[in-house]
């Protein structure tokens, strides 16, 4: 039996109201629609999709940083069990300690007016987790060392650091409150390749050492393939496929997943033009197509796809896919 999930999304929807017309109900965007997902403790869970797919919103909803319109997110780390939809003020404060976010842009995420020590210590001060300055300093030094930051540099300001070092500072800040669950939203996208590998290795090492669970949001499938153990693919607010990483990359079942994989430029110069190309662009979430959300770009769409939205169904162990035709298209 698999262990109890740390984070569970149950038919989760996040809707945002739009400034609308005077007549009729206010229009809204279904940023995330009816998503169910389980993240096991100790997992490095990848969430991929193009811009506008709702992956960031889903990540934020799991941190209670986006409104939960329908469904719920459950969090259970063995010590506490929360239903994020009905979280009281006190519990929410406690949840903030247990679930943290690492941002994308290490240049924008750090205040230029605070020293590195103060940046990392801020969550401790805000949440009142330490009793004395000396205790705070100890915690900061300990976590900085874990993130391979030079402890001598803690009194410097962020401008003195390179992109990779800044991202290590962001990671240290996220970890200092001792969280169990980390959402890393495009955390290596702004970094150069040579540095990106270093930060990815650091995240993996820290995850093992501290027993953390990650939701790793990325548009880069090659990065996800290398670091994640499970992957969920999103399109227009819906999950279209979830699977263990190896299964997803060896046997992708959804036409969108296949198209995404083949769109990654191959490093082989003689492999040009073999990719199956996807026409068109992701539709606007304010005006999604009827039926399967991918039908407007899908090379295999049939009449049924245009009227009936497919539900996620099992395509193997831990492998789920939302496509009417996945079985016929399997080989």
């Amino acid at each position: 039996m698999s262990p109890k999930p740390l984070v569970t999304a149950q038919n989760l929807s996040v809707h945002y109201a739009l400034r609308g017309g005077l007549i009729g109900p206010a229009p809204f965007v279904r940023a995330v629609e009816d998503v169910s997902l389980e993240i096991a403790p100790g997992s490095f869970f990848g969430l991929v999709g193009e811009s506008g797919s709702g992956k960031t919103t889903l990540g934020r909803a799991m941190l209670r940083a986006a409104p939960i319109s329908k469904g719920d997110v459950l969090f259970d780390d063995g010590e506490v069990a929360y239903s994020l939809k009905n979280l009281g003020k006190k519990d929410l404060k406690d949840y903030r300690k247990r679930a943290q976010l690492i941002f994308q842009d290490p240049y924008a995420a750090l205040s230029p007016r605070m020293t590195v020590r103060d940046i990392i210590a801020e969550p401790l001060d805000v949440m009142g987790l330490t009793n004395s300055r000396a205790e705070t300093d100890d915690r900061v030094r300990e976590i900085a060392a874990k993130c391979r930051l030079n402890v001598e540099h803690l009194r410097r300001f962020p401008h003195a650091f390179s992109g990779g070092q800044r991202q290590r500072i962001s990671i240290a800040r996220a970890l200092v409150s001792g969280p169990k669950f980390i959402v890393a939203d495009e955390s290596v996208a702004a970094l150069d390749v040579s540095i990106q590998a270093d930060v990815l290795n650091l995240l993996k090492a820290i995850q093992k050492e501290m027993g953390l669970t990650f939701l790793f949001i990325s548009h880069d499938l090659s990065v996800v393939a290398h670091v994640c153990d499970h992957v969920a693919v999103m399109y227009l607010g819906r999950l279209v496929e979830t699977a263990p990483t190896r299964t997803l990359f060896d046997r992708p079942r959804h036409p969108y997943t296949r198209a995404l994989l083949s769109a990654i430029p191959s490093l082989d110069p003689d492999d040009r033009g073999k990719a199956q190309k996807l026409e068109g662009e992701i539709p606007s979430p304010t005006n999604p197509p009827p039926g399967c959300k991918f039908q407007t770009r899908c090379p295999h769409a049939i009449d049924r796809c245009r009227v009936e939205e497919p539900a996620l169904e099992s395509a193997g162990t831990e492998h789920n896919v939302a496509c009417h035709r996945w079985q016929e298209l399997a080989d």
Partner: protein
Amino acid sequence: MSRLIDVENLTLQFDTDEGRITAVDNVSFSLEAGEVMGLVGESGSGKSVTAKSLMKLNPRNAVYGPDTKITLHLDDGPVDVMSLQNDREMKVVRGGAISLIFQEPMASFAPAISIGDQMVEQLLIHTSFSKTQAKELSIEMLDRVGISDPRTRFGQYAFELSGGMRQRAMIAMALSTKPKLLIADEPTTALDVTIQAQVIDLMKDLVSEFGMGIIFITHDLGVIAQTADKVAVMYLGRLVEQGTVRDVIRRPAHPYTRGLLAALPTLDDIDAPLTPIPGDIPSPLERPPGCVYNTRCQEVVGPRCALQVPEFFQVDADHSAACHIYDPEGSKA
């Protein structure tokens, strides 16, 4: 093929409050008509500055080295780019023989002028078309790059277009003056992979149709493998390796290129460990002496790596690397 551009000993420094910074250091390369050259490097390697120098598109505090020579071979004979002084003389090059596509298409269109008006404006400046002809050509170009309903799009503003469409419009605009050389500075970096694949295809089609040369600047070696004929790798303002795309990607000769490839996650072997290049790129204010890569290099051959700037050594017919490993004289020392 005929020679399109020769860049010899391009050196460019910037005067800043903190001192003089060397952005490009003695870079030489050439490009034939119809050829696609990939210029690869990480942020701060000087690849964008190098490309912009080809049309002297650099801020006032830029100082070119005295030996810098850039020759553009046009139908009416060669043009010495360095000798062009004012904006009027530069018109031959900027937007004329050379067009530039930027990374962020939102930032490169004026927000309050319609896409169409911007396309027409540059045609009126660089060609002898009438306003009506310019409009027709612009609409035709929008159609060519795969924008549906080009007549409507012509009258729209940048914010009304999606990212992929904006980048297509940018390409349409850059190509409408029929440039000899197109500089594409990270043209697909801000786009999603499926859109990136479309834009790459489009650019390949247009190269073969118009026969222009392209300098494709990117940090993404996969994009290079899919588009370029040859590759130049830059690090801290210097070229470290040059060669055909097959040679450089399959048999990288410079330790930096090898490091880049080892750090790159690929789908071919998802269990392979990612090997980062140790350390960080030094600040341009603290450029290391000798080989600029020696502070991070895993294959240092001796003290001269930190003392002596390596020359380019031929490792194959069309493949060379600036590294002391290949110095036959040095191996004895």
